[in-house]
């Protein structure tokens, strides 16, 4: 098992204690393409933050590749994030004053990879995502789909064990959303990257091979969706 969650609980204590995750048990294998689906307030974002080592959990155990992720120091957490996890965000979260290639390079910069090597690698990944011509453009000169592809390149470049995508199509139109999801699917199929997508859109979830429903902090149904027939709106569209 690549990811193993055992009875993970999380409570926010901002005035009124809020029990967000109530005993999550989840296993995700290497090479899976999973979506975590739930309405807003279901706890899916919290679960994503815990999966991404961006947040702590209170009780339970979380293993990545057999490594227990608990009570890490900031430095260690940063190190794991850098090496194990690639993030794709809803609003792309590219750094505005850096060009596409500089954005992609950034995670390698923090790994201490030498300048020329990380530049070459970043160019290689941009090329793979069809953005080689856009390498020296700034994010505000690119379309949403292009920005998200830059973000995907940045997530892939460290060769992480898991790609975590938080509403990766949230800021895109339906056509681009489709493209991005197909891209993620292709990466999963061809390169065997483990991808976890958090979404509230059934159309997006439908593109993945396994749908984990979360509701009120509890994992509900886990659907096998290799037929991509989960969406009530049909198999080929993402509704916007």
């Amino acid at each position, binding site marked *: 098992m690549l990811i193993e969650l055992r009875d993970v609980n999380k409570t926010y204590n901002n005035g009124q204690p809020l029990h967000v995750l109530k005993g999550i048990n989840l296993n995700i294998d290497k090479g899976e393409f999973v979506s975590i689906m739930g309405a807003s307030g279901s706890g899916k974002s919290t679960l994503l933050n815990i999966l991404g080592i961006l947040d702590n959990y209170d009780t339970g155990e979380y293993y990545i590749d057999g490594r227990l992720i608990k009570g890490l120091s900031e430095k260690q957490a940063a190190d794991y*994030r850098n090496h194990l996890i690639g993030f794709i965000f809803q609003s792309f979260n590219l750094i505005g004053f850096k060009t596409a290639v500089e954005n992609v390079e950034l995670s390698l910069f923090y790994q201490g990879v030498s300048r020329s090597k990380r530049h070459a690698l970043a160019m290689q990944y941009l090329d793979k995502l069809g953005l080689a011509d856009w390498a020296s453009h700034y994010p505000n000169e690119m379309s949403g789909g292009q920005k998200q592809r830059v973000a995907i390149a940045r997530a892939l470049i460290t060769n992480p064990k898991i790609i975590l995508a938080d509403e990766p199509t949230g800021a895109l139109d339906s056509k681009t959303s489709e493209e991005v999801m197909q891209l993620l699917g292709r990466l999963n199929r061809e390169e065997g990257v483990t991808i976890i997508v958090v979404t509230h859109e059934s159309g997006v979830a439908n593109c993945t091979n396994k749908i984990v429903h979360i509701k009120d902090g509890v994992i509900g149904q886990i659907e096998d969706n290799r037929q991509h027939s989960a969406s009530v709106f049909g198999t080929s569209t993402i509704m916007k």
Partner: protein
Amino acid sequence: MRFDLDSYREITDSLVRNKSRSLLTGFGVFWGIFMLLFLMGGGAGLKQLVSKNFEGFATNTTIMFSSETTKPWQGFKRGRYWNLNYTDVERMKQMVPELETVTPVISSWRQTAVNGTNSVNANVKCVKADYSKIEEPKLRFGRFINESDEAQERKVCVIGRRIYEGIFPEGGDPCGSFIKVGSVYYQVIGVDYNSGNMSINGSADQAVVIPLSLGQKIYHRGTNIDLLCVTGRSGVRMTSLEDRMRQILARSHNFDPTDKQAVFMINTEQMFALMDNLFTGLNFLIWLVGLGTILAGIIGVSNIMMVTVKERTTEIGIRRAIGATPRDILSQIILESIALTLAAGSLGIVFAVQMLRLTQSIVNHIPDMSAQFQIDFWTAIIAALLLTLLGVIAGLAPASRAMSIKPVDAMREE
């Protein structure tokens, strides 16, 4: 923090991105360091200008001259005039062993020195050879009065700068030529370029200095002397000897030993102390103003960095999410702060040095004025190091705020 070209680019990028803000913030530091260094250089120059007035004077000198008594004593009425005389020299030497030099001066004012058709106003000072210990001559040509001149009553003189310029307009070494002062011809043996303004008995550049023994005869002064100049041995405080010296004079000239106004004593020690205090105070003020201004500048930097960090919450959050450690963020913010202070401060140092140079060239164009208005090299280096340190301090608060940014904040700040 990993250091390579991009680390520097990160820093310059973020400073250049907000050009006007960086400029305005940097100006505070720039102005602060400029003020401090300019005032320091200016203060040092001013001190030199003022010290020029005291130049060539021994710092532990007391000069005495007689005056009317103000107290009755042993049947004598007050208001009696008395005179220092030649015996007082030996008396002082023997009874006050702390004194190194005791030398008498007589002078004759408002004389005219003549050489051919040139003439100039002069004061004649009659001194012994050891007068050079009191007021050190800066000989441009020749030598000072020596003991043989004194013993043989030679008609020789050392002339001051203005006398030399006035009656030897063609310049050159005047030694050997004869000049007339009053009705007597003297052979010039030296030219004294001492230009201090503190000379007792008129300024040194208007003096014609002749041997004392000769002066006594020419001006019919008998054994009376005008001034008694004494210097203490090193480590002796002249102030502490004043009462004893007054008592010695009082006993031999029959006036009240407590009559302070019967003997005028001018003590250079006190004057130097006064000047030193003045400049210590001035320096304190300079540091206060300079450091205050720098501090204001640094607080400005800190403040702006704080705003910048707040603005960049998302960016910092992204960096954290993709693997920057808190240390990476810390060093980035602190390095930005150092870069800003150091760049602005270095400009301030350069500007201050240039302005001091300008001041110096203006001042040195004024006749009779010359002073170094420069800060020394190490002051500049220390200032630069201080700036780096201040940059770190300015960056501390913003950096700790930046470090407290959690990666989740990046996503929350939508």
